[in-house]
């Protein structure tokens, strides 16, 4: 538990981490970042080394005391560099340069923007090697029933179990429990009319999917031939 803003585990006494260090007046170390070997770029790497959750650009900007746009472009530069595209300046250049620049070997790790934050991962190609050393995050695969239930919740959230059951045609109580314990879904209040618990996907779900937010899920529409508006059907009884 290292990073700033672990709202899950600690009451965030000072949620406004971002911004407070941006004025150079009171921030203790900012002026020195440029003078340190590697500069802001290395400073970002140093911070990424000690975090155990995705860090937002705001948090990172606050940590190194630089404006967000600069930090964002530095992060993209690092990302590309780890992937083997070297020779790019700290600020992301135009795409033409990538083509002309020879490609170096990628690093064994990659920097990714996931669930609204940046985080370092081992490169997927090395999964068989790395998995022996990692216990955390090792999750058994979901069953077909769990996957289908998760899909309905992801696309219809917030949604009650009864509604999910109606779509899948089977009782989903135990599957919903499993998904909750796995941290993939969570309760999201109750339906004002029926009083039923509603469920939604979690931040952890986004992390596991490697996406930034729910809108990035593939569209459901192409899978619904001839049904322009499914909402008209799904609440109907038989």
């Amino acid at each position, binding site marked *: *538990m*290292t990073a700033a803003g672990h709202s899950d585990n600690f009451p965030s006494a000072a949620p406004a981490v971002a911004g407070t260090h941006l004025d150079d007046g009171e921030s203790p170390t900012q002026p020195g970042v440029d003078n340190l070997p590697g500069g802001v770029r290395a400073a970002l790497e140093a911070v*990424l*080394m*000690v*975090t*155990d959750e995705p860090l937002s650009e705001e948090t990172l900007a606050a940590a190194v005391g630089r404006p967000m746009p600069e930090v964002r472009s530095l992060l993209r530069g690092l990302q590309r560099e780890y992937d083997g595209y070297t020779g790019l300046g700290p600020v992301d250049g135009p795409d033409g340069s990538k083509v002309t620049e020879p490609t170096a070997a990628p690093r064994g*790790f*990659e920097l990714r923007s996931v669930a609204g934050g940046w*985080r*370092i*991962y*081992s*490169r*997927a*190609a090395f*999964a068989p090697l*790395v*998995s022996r050393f*990692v216990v*955390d*995050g090792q*999750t058994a*695969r*979901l069953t*077909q*029933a769990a*996957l*289908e239930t*998760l*899909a*309905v919740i*992801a*696309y219809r959230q917030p949604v009650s*179990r009864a509604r999910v*059951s109606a*779509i*899948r*045609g*089977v*009782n989903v*109580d135990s599957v919903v*429990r499993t998904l909750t314990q796995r941290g993939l879904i969570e309760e999201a209040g109750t339906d004002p009319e029926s009083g*039923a*618990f509603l469920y939604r996907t979690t931040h952890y779900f986004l*992390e*596991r*999917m*490697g996406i930034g937010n729910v809108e990035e*899920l*593939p569209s*459901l529409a192409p*899978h*619904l031939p*001839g*049904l322009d508006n*499914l909402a008209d*059907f*799904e609440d109907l009884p*038989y």
Partner: protein
Amino acid sequence: MVARPDLAAPAGGTAPAAAGGGFEVRLANFTGPFDLLLGLITKHELDITEIALAQVTDEFIGYIRGLQQLGQEWALDEASEFLVIAATLLDLKAARLLPSGEVDDDEDLALLEARDLLFARLLQYKAFKQVAALLGARLDEEAERFPRLVSLEPSFAALLPELIWKHTPEQFAALARKALEPREGPPTEVALSHLHAPEVNVREQAILLARRLRGSGPVPFRVLVSDAADTLVVVARFLALLDLFREAVIAFDQANPLGELLVRWSGPTEGWDDTRLSSGFDGTDDTHHPREAGQ
């Protein structure tokens, strides 16, 4: 024509369930009625939007029949979903067997509506099944990447503020108690406690009616229920009459359709034992709260 359940494998390449498995085993192959239906349709290379479902209907029904023979333990709500779909399919099939007429009566319309709804739900399920596969593939792919998730270097860990701890062992135990309590999940059944309908016992009503009928001639049904306090009692008495009819101790007379229904005792005048009556359609054990209206 009726396929055995273990023959009804989906076309997706899934192996048929091993013989002798219970309902759960089968659900591993088909996660619900839509899944099964989808599997059958695919197997026959039918377009979902087509109506040529006679063969699929037979197999679906056969599947359910197999379930009934095999598993006693299948969950009611799942079973009912299967049955509802089977009934809809049967309706559709029956409609196709009848001479084709113009679609202008209400039943036909209702049938079309049922068909459209069934297909809509089936299409919806199919869509979710497809995106579920995409999600699964994505999760698998992502599982190959491991986030850096290491504990703090000791020098940094030492910087963490000393924990404020003010819980006594008793307070801590109270926390544990709360956390270890079985979680009250949201109710999964519709509560009936708010319904105040009194329980009416069919058997009690049958005894009452038998007593009345034995000493008299034919009595109109209208009279038999004239003292009923509410509809529930009327229904119970009607069911009781059916029960008595099954016991062959009463007979019905009705001169013309919708005419007066006369009920008369046809059993032995003496020595008839009402313990022979079954406990009635309500299946209760008489320990509930019988209520004899009008007594």
